């Protein structure tokens, strides 16, 4: 009961604090809209022409989702850690019953809600303005645990970045430097044959690839999950997310 009370209190405070930063709210939801409009509607795809967008439109849905699942929690949690450090809030929290992992879990729950809503917006826009179709069947509900696991993983990584960087600016720079290669050296937008052979093992092992395969199997091609299948990809992603959360919780500082 006490733990639930602490989590609820931390969640409520973090949620209110987010909603009242209007610029952050606007761009959190505007960002995926830009992605879909540019890459889904304006650029379009040429299934027979080769190049970056050579696959059918539905192939890129996991990429759009990966953008928000990857970038948003990395920068949001990293910045939140930096803000807490600058305001000496961790020093205060260290003398309360709230544990570091509870703090991170509360932040993760906020991000799950925020990014869940963003993902819904993104899928709706994709269906509305691009040729891709989004299946509306019970199996599509499995997208939820994929998004949750992906968000949890990158909340943990964001906490690690926040613990290492010495300022909010540093966190943003570090999260961008990490997110771009993770996104574009994975199977979110690219097929393995588009990268050099020596890079493909890393691409295959990337957690973003696990996420992309699972989501692609649910929204585009059931065979896309690969040898692990959807449950296997989800289990592997969840395991990596658990490691990320633990690393994030451990790296949260107690003081400066």
């Amino acid at each position, binding site marked *: 009961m*006490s733990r639930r*009370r*602490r989590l*609820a*209190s*931390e969640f*409520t*405070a973090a949620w*209110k*604090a987010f909603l*009242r*930063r209007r610029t952050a709210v606007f761009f959190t939801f505007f960002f995926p809209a830009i992605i879909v409009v540019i890459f889904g509607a304006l650029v379009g795809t040429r299934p027979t022409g080769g190049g970056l967008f050579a696959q059918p439109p539905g192939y890129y849905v996991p990429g759009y989702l990966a953008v928000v699942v990857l970038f948003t929690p990395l920068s949001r949690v990293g910045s939140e850690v930096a803000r807490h450090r*600058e*305001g*000496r*809030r961790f*020093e*205060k*929290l*260290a*003398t*309360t*019953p*709230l544990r570091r992992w509870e703090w991170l879990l509360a932040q993760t729950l906020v991000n799950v809600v925020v990014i869940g809503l963003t993902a819904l917006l993104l899928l709706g826009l994709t269906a509305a303005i691009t040729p891709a179709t989004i299946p509306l069947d019970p199996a599509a509900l499995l997208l939820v645990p994929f998004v949750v696991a992906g968000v949890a993983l990158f909340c943990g990584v964001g906490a690690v970045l926040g613990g290492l960087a010495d300022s909010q600016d540093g966190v943003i720079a570090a999260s961008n430097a990490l997110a771009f290669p993770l996104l574009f050296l994975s199977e979110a937008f690219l097929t393995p044959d588009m990268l050099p052979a020596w890079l493909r093992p890393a691409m295959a092992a990337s957690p973003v690839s696990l996420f992309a395969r699972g989501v692609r199997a649910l929204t585009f091609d059931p065979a896309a999950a690969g040898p692990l299948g959807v449950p296997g990809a989800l289990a592997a992603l969840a395991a990596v997310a658990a490691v990320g959360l633990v690393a994030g919780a451990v790296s949260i500082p*107690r*003081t400066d």
Partner: protein
Amino acid sequence: MNDVVVAEDLRKTYGDVCALDGVSLSVAPGEVFGLIGPNGAGKTTLVRALTGTTPVEGTVRLLGGAPTAVDRDRIGLLPQSFAPASRLTPRELLTHYGGLYDEATDPASVLEAVGLADAADTWYEKLSGGQRRRACVGVALVNDPDVLFLDEPTTGIDPAGRRRLWDLIDGLAAGGTTVVLTSHSMAEIERLADRVALLADGRLLALDRPGALIETHAGESRVVVATAGTPEGSEAGDGRPPTGDGNAAAGDRTLPEGLAAAAADAGFDVEATPEGFVFEDVAAEEIGSVVDVLVDRGIEYDSLAWRQPGLEDVYLELTGDSFGMHRAGPSVEPTDPEEGELR
């Protein structure tokens, strides 16, 4: 009764900087314990050590156990420069931090206690500096702690708000709460603390009751006579070079001829300082005698102030941080009419 806070031989370094150098102290239940010292003296590091938020060498016992193992419902902390979420209101902040404990005080009563009832629903970022600090003090109080650590709680708070917080701390201590308080306001520490520790360069220079420290280190009460301009005269104040660590003004001021002798006849030592002529060891009932000496010597003066030594004198004496002003008047705000300035 067991001490609530015990620190033995605490040591802490940050690179080449020694933040704590063998500090030992203890705080009794219900005691208000003041920590004073120059910037960088180690006060905040000591508070962190006592609350278990930074590792140190040595032994710390808080409520009988290691500070990291203590029941966190029983301690409250206001860190220095604490800044909570800027777009929550004081009421929401208290609800938030109160929600982290099994039991918490009603936010409305805490807001009333810290004088923020009227601004309870204003975003923190829109509060004045003093209101913000009061909200932060409220956050430290919300779990009704047995031991309360306040690191510079009244920074930026106006005099009325400060006195309100002093009364609040008095009330908490009277109710049995142990308070460890750091401050740069000597008036605050002198007013609130049962005992005071003076830190400098990570070392504990003195620890005692404020009155005992003043008696030991700050000298006697004195009368300061301010005159217009620098008096002419050939007689040095007490035969010593003017004090003041090279302060030019101190070197310019000398005693009028015959004043030192007349003061001695009346039983006083007098010396020239940048702020005026200082008659040492003058009891309140002897002020008239000082006036008589001045009148006899035909000395006109702008003001005459009788000052009791305070904690600030102790601070300046022990830290050597005198700003070139020997025995500068303490900033202690008079609480007794007899301590006021006489004009």
